[in-house]
Structures are given as C-alpha cells and as structure tokens.
C-alpha cells in the first residue's frame, strides 16, 4: 500500500474520474475525504462501498466555486484527521457552445468551478502543507483540451490552460517546502461529462483518432494520480502529464 495512513482530499469525487481517484487512493491505504456538489446518492454509495471494504472514507457536500467551501472543508479534514497530504483538484464542469454565442454566465460557470475552485482549495491546503507539514502533493486534473482544442470549448480550454499555468506557478512557490504540484491532462475518458460526444462520435474518435484505439477509462487517470501522490513521484513537480492514449499526437488512422 503506497499511501498508508496519508490523508487525501479529492474534489468532484462522487462520479467519473474523481470516483476512480478516490477508489485508487483508498486502495493504497489513504484516508480519503471527497467533495461532491449535488450527487448525494452517488457520494453516499461510494462512501459506503469503500468503508465496507475497510477504508476510511468520508463524503463532504460542497460547491467548490464558493470561496468559503474550501476553507470549511479543509478545516473539517484537519479537525478529523489532523493532516492533508494529498489534494486532488478534480471537480470540473463543461458548458460547451460556439464562442460567438457564448454568454457570460456559461463562461463564468466553467472558470468558477474549474479554475477558481482549484485556486480556493490549493490556498486552503497550502498553509497546512507548506508551512505546518513541510510536505504535500497537489494534483490538478486538467485536460488535453487546453492545448488540443475542439470547437465549442473556449471556456473549458481557457480554464484548463489556466490550471496548467497555475500548476507551474504553484510548483515554483511551494517547492522549497517539499510540496510537489502537478497536473494530469486526460484525453477522452468514458464519464458522464463525455457522454453526449461519445454517443455522437465515440466510435469514430476511438478508431480514427486515438493511437491506442480505445477511449480512456477513469482508472487510467487514477493510476497516474496515484503515481504523482506516492513515493515514485517525489522529484516531479510543475508538470502536466498527458494521459490520452495518444489522442493529442493528432494522428488520423490511415
């Protein structure tokens, strides 16, 4: 168990990639608190499943785009478990639409959750990790969309591009305190978020655009998060690790 007795906090942990991350961290022996916004049933079911398997897991309700949430929930984790060793900023939303018709509300909603939420949680955990513990791992879930953009995702791409830059900035500021900060950029993963596109073009994408000839599973991303959170990732910081089956290489099957 690579992460025995470490304390992890994962945002957006009730479904999709976040859920796989929670499961993977718990499997490696970490105590895991995860944040969910509206999926109460999914969250409680995940918590029950992992506790039944012998894990220490807690579901916490909160909206990461609310500035208060991060402070409140990080304080709770500290009160219950005394530390935060691993922070995974995974909560993310899309509000796809053509740019010329994109309204400010859709722009803001995506930036608020994907970028600001990441900022609030990093800041809430930074004092604990950098000043009190002098150790920590921060992993931000980004996307290939930051660099490999399709039409209709100007807001999403902007938010993830910003997360990548923020990751590098934080790595520089917290490095002397033994906190590594990295990002994972998933490609096309089988989750609720990609369901609509998968229905329309999943097969095409898998067969024509992904060298590994399949879409990704949430577990594919979780594995890399565990690497970054664990002992093997100790000297890596400020990096964005692309995990996309080769999608961003831009090849089309001949």
């Amino acid at each position, binding site marked *: 168990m690579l992460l025995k007795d470490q304390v992890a906090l994962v945002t957006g942990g009730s479904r999709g990639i976040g859920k796989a991350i929670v499961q993977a961290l718990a499997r490696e022996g970490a105590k895991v608190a995860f944040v969910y916004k509206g999926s109460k049933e999914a969250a409680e079911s995940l918590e029950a499943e992992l506790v039944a398997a012998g894990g220490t897991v807690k579901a916490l309700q909160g909206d990461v785009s609310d500035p208060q949430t991060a402070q409140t929930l990080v304080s709770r984790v500290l009160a219950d478990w005394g530390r935060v060793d691993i922070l995974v900023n995974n909560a993310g939303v899309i509000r796809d639409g053509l740019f010329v018709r994109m309204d400010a509300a859709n722009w803001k909603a995506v930036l608020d959750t994907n970028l600001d939420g990441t900022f609030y949680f990093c800041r809430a955990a930074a004092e604990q990790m950098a*000043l009190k513990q002098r150790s920590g791992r921060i992993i931000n879930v980004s996307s290939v969309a930051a660099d490999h953009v399709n039409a209709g995702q100007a807001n999403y791409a902007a938010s993830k591009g910003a997360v990548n830059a923020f990751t590098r900035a934080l790595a520089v*500021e917290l490095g*002397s*305190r033994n906190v590594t900060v990295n990002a994972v950029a998933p490609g096309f993963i089988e989750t609720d978020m990609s369901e609509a596109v998968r229905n329309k073009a999943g097969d095409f994408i898998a067969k024509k655009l992904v060298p590994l000839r399949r879409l990704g599973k949430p577990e594919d991303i979780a594995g890399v998060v565990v690497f970054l959170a664990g002992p093997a990732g100790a000297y890596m910081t400020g990096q964005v690790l692309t995990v996309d089956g080769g999608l961003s290489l831009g090849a089309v099957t001949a």
Partner: protein
Amino acid sequence: MPSEQEIFEKVRTTLVDALNVDEDEVTLASRLRGDLNAESIDFLDIVFRLEKQFGVKIPREELFPEAIFSGDPSFVTDGKVNAAGLKELQEKLPFANLAEFAKDPRIEKVEDLFTVEFIVSYLKRKTGG
C-alpha cells in the same frame, strides 16, 4: 517578561527550524537573507513560528514590511533609498539599526536590515521589554 538572552535563544530555535540551519550559524548579526539564505516564503514561515513560540500576534507587515522591498518609486531614487524612504523605514521599523544603512542606502541593502538582532529587538518590545 523574558530576558534578551531568552528571546535570542527562542528566536534562534525558530530560525533553525524554519531555515534548516545549524544553531551555531545563528548570531545576533546574522542577516536573514544574506547569511541564512531565507527566501520569500521563509519570511512568512518565520512570522508564523514566532507567533507560536512567543504567544503573540504579529500583524502582516509589522515585522517584515513588504512595500519597502518593492522599490516603490516614492521611496527610491536612482537605486538609493531617498529621504522620504528613510523616514518611511524609521516609521515602519523603529527597532531597526538604520545608522549604518543610511551611510550607503542602496535599495538592495534594505534586506540586510533584517537580522536576528532586528527580530530580537522587535520581540523585546512586543513582550513588554
């Protein structure tokens, strides 16, 4: 009310922890940046730990004023701290030893004011000395 020696020893312990230096590297004259290699985040860390060690509250900017570092053009002319700047330093850092600095007030030497003695003087005042 702690004696100056007691204050120095606690400050020394704090700096050893915060900066990962050896005890014998820390003297009253040691400059935080120049001699003990403190970087920006270390200053925050030091304030944090001093608050805990001495049971006092150190408001932001009271011990390590940030603006003075920033080369604010009203305080700095041609790379030297000007009269307005010196006055500002005297006000913000009443416990600092400005006599030496005033002889060669280059902006890059402001950080040399932050010595262990500077911290000890600040804490003497703070703890009622």
